[in-house]
């Protein structure tokens, strides 16, 4: 079969029952997409198929022919080819916000975030959470992930990102009570 991954066409020899994730990891050596739960419950295997985040452990590799597949490894080279330097801005924002603790869920999460920002450059918190609702993270509590997406969005629009709770200590006693629904 021929698979187009990160802009390159690969000839791959694999049995029909191999999933796209297995081919990526164990035939093409693209180990950035991760295996977390075997059957589509966690999102760690998320790749972009024609720009859309999909679960690669539930896609047959043969079904991915004639589609453009982007894995986490493809973002930086694409960014550089487009005239940028270093990591893709979304990857960079995740790094800058501390969103990569163990990092295992992040190839999937970053791709979901990347696709969101491509279509929705200024997403609300709720929109970010909804877009990432298929990517389980066990380390961050999603807070720094949200901040990373907000940062990437703010940078692209040339504005400042929202402040983070630990950047300023709470007001001293006697100050007006804060709004209870401030987001982190």
């Amino acid at each position, binding site marked *: 079969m021929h698979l187009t991954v990160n802009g390159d066409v690969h000839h791959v020899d694999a049995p029909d029952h191999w999933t796209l994730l297995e081919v990526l990891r164990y035939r093409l050596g693209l180990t950035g997409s991760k295996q977390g739960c075997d059957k589509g419950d966690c999102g760690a295997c998320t790749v972009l198929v024609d720009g859309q985040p999909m679960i690669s452990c539930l896609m047959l590799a043969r079904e991915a022919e004639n589609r453009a597949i982007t894995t986490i490894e493809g973002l930086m080279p694409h960014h550089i080819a487009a005239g940028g330097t270093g990591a893709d801005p979304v990857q960079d924002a995740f790094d800058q916000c501390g*969103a990569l603790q163990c990092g295992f869920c992040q190839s999937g999460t970053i791709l979901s975030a990347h696709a969101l920002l491509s279509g929705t450059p200024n997403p609300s918190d709720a929109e970010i959470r909804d877009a990432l609702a298929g990517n389980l993270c066990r380390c961050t509590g999603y807070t720094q992930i949200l901040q990373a997406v907000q940062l990437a969005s703010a940078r692209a629009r040339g504005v400042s990102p929202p402040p983070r709770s630990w950047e300023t200590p709470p007001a001293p006693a006697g100050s007006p009570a804060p709004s209870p629904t401030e987001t982190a």
Partner: protein
Amino acid sequence: MASRDIHGIDPPWGDFRHVGRALRKVDGLAKATGAAVYTDDISLPGMLHAKLLRSPHAHARILAIDTTRVRQLSGVHGVITGEDLPVKFGILPWTQDETALAVGKVRHVGEPVAAVAAVDEDTANAALKLIRVEYELLHVYIDPFESLSRHDPPIHEQHRSGNISKHVHLSFGDVDMALSHADAVVEGDYFFHGTTHAAIEPHCAVAQYAADGVLTLWSSTQITHYVHRALAHVLGLSAHRIRVIQPCLGGAFGGKSDPFSFEFVTAKLAMLTGRPIKLLYTREEVFYTHRGRHPMHMHYKTGATRDGRLTGVDATILVDGGAYSSYGLVTTYYAGQLLTGPYDFPTYRFDSTRVFTNKPTCGPKRGHGSVQPRFAFEVQLDELAEVLRMDPIEIRRRNLLGADTTTVNGQRITSNGIAKCLDFVEQASGWTTRRGRLGYGRGLGVAASMYISGTNYPIYPNPMPQAAVQLKIDRSGLVTVFSGANDIGQGSNSIAQYLVAEELGLALDQVRVASADTDLCPVDLGAYSSRETFMVGNALIDACRKIRPQLVQAVAERWQVDTARVRFVEGVVIDLEDVSRSMSAAEAFQLAEEKFDTLGATGAYNTPTLGGDYRGGTIGAAPAYSFTAHAVEVSVDVETGRITCHDVWIAHDCGRALNPMLVAGQMEGSAYMGVAEALMEDHDVHASGLHKGPSLLDYRIPTSVDTPALHALIVESLDPEGPYGAKEAGEGPLHPSIPAISNAVFDAVGIRLRHLPFTPGRVLAALRARQHSAPSGEPELAGGPR
């Protein structure tokens, strides 16, 4: 020993250049670009794939195992059973009751019984189906109360106390007297259910046995050093012929801190076949391996004066250990020993019993042995506040331990920021104007806790350092740090970079870290008990302060000035009194190498002697303690019983935030995990011992839409013994979330949730019970609804 290990809280020269900043991690971009190598990403030429055959029975004798048909299957290169690895092991030297593959009997569903190595996983799976095992079924122990009294058949035949894994009874002061004289006494039963780590990366190991007889094991482990020792012990190899490497790791939370079956099996199969072996768990297998939070049935009785001063606490705890010991001895102690802060109470007694059951083994999960008692006690403290008509934050304030004191069970408290933690959450949540005033169905709750920052004792008793690093200083200006520490995502490698760059006055990109490789790195005991930053941090400063004088002296001699004038600032060396003079750090390194020959230094850390002077007194003793307070805001849908947690304000005293962004990340992740355990997670088995739902679909962890807003508020108490004053942040911030939710639900709808998890069904049942109870008999609710 102790004086060597106190480096002070102040920056090494001038102001901090790196410490205290929200810096990137050393491995952040590697992870973000998919370049970081995790264990399953490793592939070696000729590598075979191993699979484990697991027991379908919870308790059974193995009568026979027939592997003859397996050996005939094309593509199978090795098959082993318990006979091939009979040596017992266990993380604690006193309770080594496990074997890599079952010998004689199986004790829980999913216990490994045999293993195969084949050309690919499909063949290995097919091979497993050809193995015939004959079992004789035995009585299955599910209810821990049964294991207390019934010992026939024993789960562990050689265990002296039948099905009782460990019993601890400790008493400090006269609790009975204190409670009988108390103005107010609250007593109750509390239950904490089983939960598991559910790290996104399943366990994986790759083993290679070279022609010269050196074994290399790559493993997703938190404890390279202990695995190293266990491999030598079980395989009968000299430890110096074994190398253990921890690649990048996808989350652990305590679930990867035992030596495991799959590690011994891959090593053994590599030795038998002469080929590299990989074994990757399925998600289901991770559930059978477990080592998660011990379910605890707890009974607490607390007394106080009418002013809210605690007079005594009496606890009885039944700990459900599952099939093997693991860290259980420690858990049994921790269940009582870790409750004695942040409050001061003069008398205390706990009776803690851990039993074996035929369920996946329990072990350390974030906040090991401490989260469960903390839940019970913080709810009971709120109940006491209700009886005394006192605000829940006020009653806590009246009982706080201060700094530089000793707890009732002999633990040394040094830095202590709990008062500020309570202040912060009080302010951030608008507590004083909002609690009790949000209307029926919405409420605020508070809870506080204390946790160890490293422990006093190594897992195997020895007087050697608990943490160590080695520095290599290169002419290029690069410093390489060899650190034994296990970076499991918490950032211990990043901390190494920040501290070395700080101490030696370098730019961040002049420091690189190689870690968790037993060939290259000195021994560090591992990532557990929140010890890495504290202990490795001190070891790093120790090493740097050995090498720094050489660097400074070499420059001073070149410039012919006093050493006090020489300062390294982010990679540039300056003369404080002559701005025209400077050189690069690389040049300084070369000068020093010329003068002192090849440069290098080691640094180490060991805890001072700590703990009470009684048997078990060191368990729970730590060189420093972190402190945490949470306030949470919830709403309760009284028609469905569902609790929605909207906000968690987390105030955590981490001593000094070496990197506030990483500290905040730990605080948020911890709080998220606590909320998940309170509302959603449930690790449970059927009556047969079979796990009810061993998948991430059925074992539910919150998605991004299920998680509340988490507000991290950092408190710094500048610990005198932590590296620059730093203490832990990885486990403490989980504890208060769970009781705070229960306490918030009380504020919202006037029911007490003492039984976890807080399912909608339980909430509805409690609401109905409250409706039916006679209103006149109830104490007046402090700030609660009608």
